[in-house]
């Protein structure tokens, strides 16, 4: 009996040291959209609302990193995986655009979330062969590494557009450190329980959020150099292209 009492006391003490549920998980789900509708890749039917340009998307690949929550005092809480390592994501058409942060987020309210479309310098110019099978930065997963030139393409978007009735290709590969695309989404991010945060990626905003970009006038191709600045203007638009949809409870 004495041992039972001692054991019960120990359990109670241990539970008090690490109160159950003091940390929560977060699933970030991003929905590719065009004018509020699901982004389709099948036809020349996407009309840009400002310029009236008509697009067909073939490719929307991007690498995300530097995920962090914005705390009430304005400071950043970097999000990490089970091993305590930074979280990375690779999004491409046909696969879920989702990131799951395990149960390691302090349970409290936050005022927003940040991430970067792109990578920091160390990751961008690091040895790409270091990444394990299936890792978002493994070049055979994302096919966005520049290879022998070094560095990754942060976002690759390609397709066709109507140019005076003709179907012509466009391609913008956003790369280089000056074109990293920081994203900040403010909102009442109440994480006193595990949640799913749903965001939209509004692809139409690539072409007008801050800077108007028209393939027919600004150039339909860029590999982020010698392009008259079109890649940089698009990168600034990308930072404005994500929006808050909902914060959902996760059972």
């Amino acid at each position: 009996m004495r041992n039972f009492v001692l054991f019960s006391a120990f359990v109670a003490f241990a539970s008090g040291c690490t109160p159950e549920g003091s940390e929560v998980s977060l699933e970030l789900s991003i929905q590719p959209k065009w004018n509020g509708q699901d982004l389709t890749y099948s036809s020349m039917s996407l009309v840009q609302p400002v310029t009236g340009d008509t697009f067909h998307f073939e490719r929307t690949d991007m690498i995300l990193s530097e995920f962090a929550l914005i705390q009430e005092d304005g400071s950043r809480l970097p999000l990490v995986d089970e091993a305590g390592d930074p979280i990375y994501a690779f999004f491409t058409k046909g696969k879920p655009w989702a990131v799951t942060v395990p149960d390691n987020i302090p349970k409290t309210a936050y005022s927003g979330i940040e991430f970067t479309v792109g990578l920091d310098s160390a990751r961008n110019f690091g040895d790409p062969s270091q990444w394990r099978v299936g890792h978002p930065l493994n070049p055979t997963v994302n096919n966005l590494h520049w290879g022998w030139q070094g560095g990754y393409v942060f976002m690759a978007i390609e397709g066709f557009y109507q140019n005076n009735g003709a179907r012509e290709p466009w391609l913008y590969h956003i790369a280089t450190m000056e074109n990293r695309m920081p994203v900040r989404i403010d909102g009442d991010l109440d994480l006193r329980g595990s949640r799913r945060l749903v965001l939209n990626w509004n692809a139409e905003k690539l072409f007008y959020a801050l800077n108007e970009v028209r393939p027919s006038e600004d150039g339909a191709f860029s590999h982020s150099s010698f392009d008259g600045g079109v890649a940089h203007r698009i990168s600034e638009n990308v930072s404005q292209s994500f929006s808050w949809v909902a914060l959902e409870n996760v059972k």
Partner: protein
Amino acid sequence: MKYFALALIALVAVSCGENPPPTTPYALNVPQGFPPPPIPEDNPLTVEGVLLGRRLFYDPILSRDSTQSCGSCHNTSFGMTDHGLRFSVGITGAVGDRNSMPLHNLAYHTALFWDGRTPTLRQQSLEPIENPIEMDHTVAAVLASLNASPTYRELFWKAYGVKTITAEELGLAMEQFMLTIMSGNSKFDRFARGLESLTPEEQLGLQLFNGEANPNAPVRGADCFHCHGGTLFTNHKFTNNGLDTAITDPGLGGVTGNPNDLGKFKVPSLRNIAYTPPYMHDGRFQTLMEVVDFYNSGTHANSPNIDPAMGDIIRSGGLGLNLQERLALVAFLNTLTDPSIESDTLFQNPFN
């Protein structure tokens, strides 16, 4: 008691006989600088599995008249392609309609064949057996032959612990062998590791290969890296590179049914490219110079579903390389040749 002991011994002996011997893990030689290859978790490489797979790969037992093996059309002296032939000839004399693909660094590929119709090597390896213009056999008949062979029964028992060979083990064994065909010791690889130098011509070719075909850029480029970049010299995508004004082979579109995929084919790795003429999915170009000439001035802007990455090149009227530059590009492509694909005894026909 005496009979009980004997029975126990007999039981143990039988039980031991039912357990296959342990397999030996196969240490895959991954070239320096290559990303870790995704080996299927349900088919870990073993010495027994790899050697069995190699034997099957080179055994004509897979074809209906026992005259052709996988190695018949994937010869190591030709970078695991078919002896420089435009199209392979099957056992009936039927001629194929696509060029034999090289088989190296396949561990990194998630869509096989020119049209990407098969996601795994285990599935891919069974297709030529039943293709009427290739081996013209049936997997069922092959399995009957294998199960009638004491040698194969023993080898499958040691590799997979099965008494009866099924299509699953047949595919898994050949998958194991093909996963081991790694190639990353070309002159270029040694240059990248600081072990060898490129000639000035090869250096120019490298610069062109990795340079943008951008009229605003200060240095001229051929934009090859765009689709053939990275360690494996492929982006693993399916594209129409502007070969024709009209679609003659549906390619990926024939698999997906998506009209936007018509005329798209797998972007091949350029490793060992000098070993593998002729070129393109239909082997229309005999030499690398013909290929470079095509990109230089022969692409078709109005080809349906042409890849957007080709757009800038075509709008510029082609690459516009002069003869010296085109020769340099070919010289660089020749540095991607890895002689070990031809000489490594691990890849050779064990029946020889």
